[in-house]
């Protein structure tokens, strides 16, 4: 029989191999699913993974990869710091929304001024909005010991309702004759977040994501705070002896993740999305959780994982249109990635042992054992 046996220390090999194995398993299982839906699995994989990078229209899709990966990476880097310290911020989606709302509101207060100072102000307000929204679960945890998983998650739904009210009332475009949605920020030069180099898709949010990766890498490898984060995650009691103040760590990790998510929202609303609309939130905050784990909670890993995730989105959309795959199949395909990752991750902490069947000692009540 096969048994799982705990490893004395987590395997370094498996820690890095498991994402690769998970991707491979996803390809196989996804291929079976696509075949069952009557689509040639090889063609589906080519459409999803190859065409966006090297196909006929790659010049457009490569840029779109950055557009899609930018916010995912920016949010995931912040989340990963908290996850490493055992602080589970599941509500990045809410922080992303509130950041976008605060930033957009700050900018629109100056409409129609034409000064490029407005955009930096909006970025600051976006970060602040996300930070403050994340402070709610942080302070509740410190003060009352509430569970930040539940509080941050529930606040997502509050944020979604704030977004709906902003879109239909207090941020609504007054020139839009009653229709919902704010003014188009991407068409207002003072507030727009344009492509920095034409055709690359790179806007300020992509730049910020790269800076965040570098910053987080340095923080974790060279800074005392990074050491405290890692120590708290690995051995909370030892961390207490080493002088880590848990409350400060909670504020730092949730606050930073919130600020980064808020900035991501602001960059999105001023750039690719263009306006505050009812459906502005498109799940980046939740997908970023997958990206953080797929990237092993490591900033550089997250960079790669974000790009891979973006590829499944961009390529997945192309497959849905060109091959007539239902959108649910694409979502299932993406879900498989996380599923297999978590499954294979077991091998980091456990090893498989094939054991001989041990002779059974007769039990007093054999019926119950079956």
């Amino acid at each position: 029989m096969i048994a799982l046996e705990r490893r004395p220390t987590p395997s370094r090999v498996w820690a890095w191999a498991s994402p690769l194995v998970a991707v491979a398993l996803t390809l196989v299982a996804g291929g079976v699913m696509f075949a069952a839906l009557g689509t040639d699995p090889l063609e589906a994989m080519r459409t999803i993974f190859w065409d966006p990078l090297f196909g006929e229209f790659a010049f457009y899709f490569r840029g779109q990869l950055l557009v899609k990966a930018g916010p995912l990476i920016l949010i995931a880097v912040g989340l990963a710091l908290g996850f490493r310290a055992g602080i589970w911020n599941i509500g990045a989606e809410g922080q992303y929304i509130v950041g976008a709302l605060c930033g957009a509101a700050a900018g629109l207060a100056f409409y129609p001024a034409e000064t490029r100072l407005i955009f930096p102000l909006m970025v600051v307000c976006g970060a602040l909005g996300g930070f403050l929204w994340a402070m709610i679960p942080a302070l509740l945890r410190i003060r009352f010991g509430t569970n930040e998983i539940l509080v941050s998650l529930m606040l997502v739904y509050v944020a979604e309702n704030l977004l709906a009210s902003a879109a239909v009332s207090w941020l609504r475009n007054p020139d839009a004759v009653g229709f919902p949605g704010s003014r188009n920020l991407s068409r207002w030069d003072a507030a727009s977040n344009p492509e920095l180099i034409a055709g690359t898709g790179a806007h300020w949010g992509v730049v910020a994501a790269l800076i965040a990766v570098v910053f987080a890498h340095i923080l974790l490898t060279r800074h005392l705070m990074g050491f405290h984060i890692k120590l708290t995650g690995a051995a909370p009691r030892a961390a207490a002896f080493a002088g880590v103040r848990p409350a400060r760590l909670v504020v730092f990790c949730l606050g930073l993740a919130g600020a980064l998510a808020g900035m991501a929202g602001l960059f999105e609303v001023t750039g690719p999305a263009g306006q505050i609309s009812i459906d502005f939130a498109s799940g980046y905050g939740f997908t970023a959780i997958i990206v953080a784990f797929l990237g092993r909670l490591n900033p550089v890993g997250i960079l790669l994982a974000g790009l891979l995730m973006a590829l499944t989105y961009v390529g997945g959309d192309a497959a849905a249109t060109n091959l007539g795959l239902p959108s649910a199949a694409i979502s299932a395909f993406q879900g498989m990635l996380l599923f297999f990752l978590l499954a294979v991750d077991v091998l980091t902490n456990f090893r498989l042992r094939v054991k001989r069947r041990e002779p059974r000692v007769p039990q007093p009540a054999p019926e119950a054992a079956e």
Partner: protein
Amino acid sequence: MRLTNLLAGALTLGLAGAAFAQDEPTKVGFVYVGPIGDGGWTFQHNEGRLALEEEFGDRVETIYQESVPEGADAERVITQMALQGADIIFTTSFGYMDATNNVAEKFPNVMFEHATGYKRDHPNVSTYDARFYEGRAVIGTIAGHMTETNKIGYIASFPIPEVIQGINSSYMHAAKVNPDVEMVVTWVYTWFDPAKEADAARAMIDQGVDVILQHTDSTAPQAAAAEANENGGRVFTFGQASDMAAFKPVPRIASIIDDWSPYYIKRVGALMDGTYEQTASWGGMPEGEVVIGEITDAVPAEVKAEAEAMIAAITAGEYHPFTGPIMKQDGTVFLAEGEVATDGQLATMDFYVQGIEGEIPN
């Protein structure tokens, strides 16, 4: 941005040759906001796509993508369809408005048709919508007759003119046949969320509402009403966007069906024979775009006859649901005796008519 335009311009030049080559079928793209199995809004647009294939056979090739989020993703999906040689693209949700116009700017040789919007920033962007308020007048009449508690519920999505027209039209026609009728409006801020819609329906039933109208796309309110009826209730509903025939004969006693097929066939046909022009279309019962589904036997024969007479009058252009005298909620005059609302007045409607309690959230 400007460089991008140049790039895209160069690209379209290359594609234009391909798009207008003979023998090639006309490629038609559809962008859907929900799953095609939603049983409502998106389902009906997809029926329109299928009707297009049936009408033109090999001369058209249709592509579609379902559940496309409004915003940046929509722009990418529309661009992708244009890049891959679509000749005309129907974007079937209000939230695709800016994305549609942005992509249209980059692909001047591709035609874009945006449902329910008002922005036509470029000559290749047309808009289309249907006069759902005509259907509301008919089901409002039926609702006014059918209610015993004199409470009619309305599950409203977003406070936009299209939805407000529907609430006003339903109420006015219910009140015309039953002056004691009261309208209970619940805003759910979604087009499609079965859980929220069901909650809204149940809350209304608890308040004594016995006829429910909805401006959301799922069948959840129908199921909630069916459940109440199984437990001894007497609640009626109307199918929305699609026939929702599974809930016949009760609770669903009639339905407003959006039939986009005539419009899609007309527009793609015009593109094929070269008569295509930019339009802002707003069809209704006369064009066959708004259809009332079967009125079931749960409705008394004389009520059914009255509803059918109204359908005939609207279809013939003899009756407009917004004909004066109509007062606003605050008591000021909206339309004088005999005056008919203009399309402009309807398209910007942001008030309740007299008799509806409550405020439009703003």
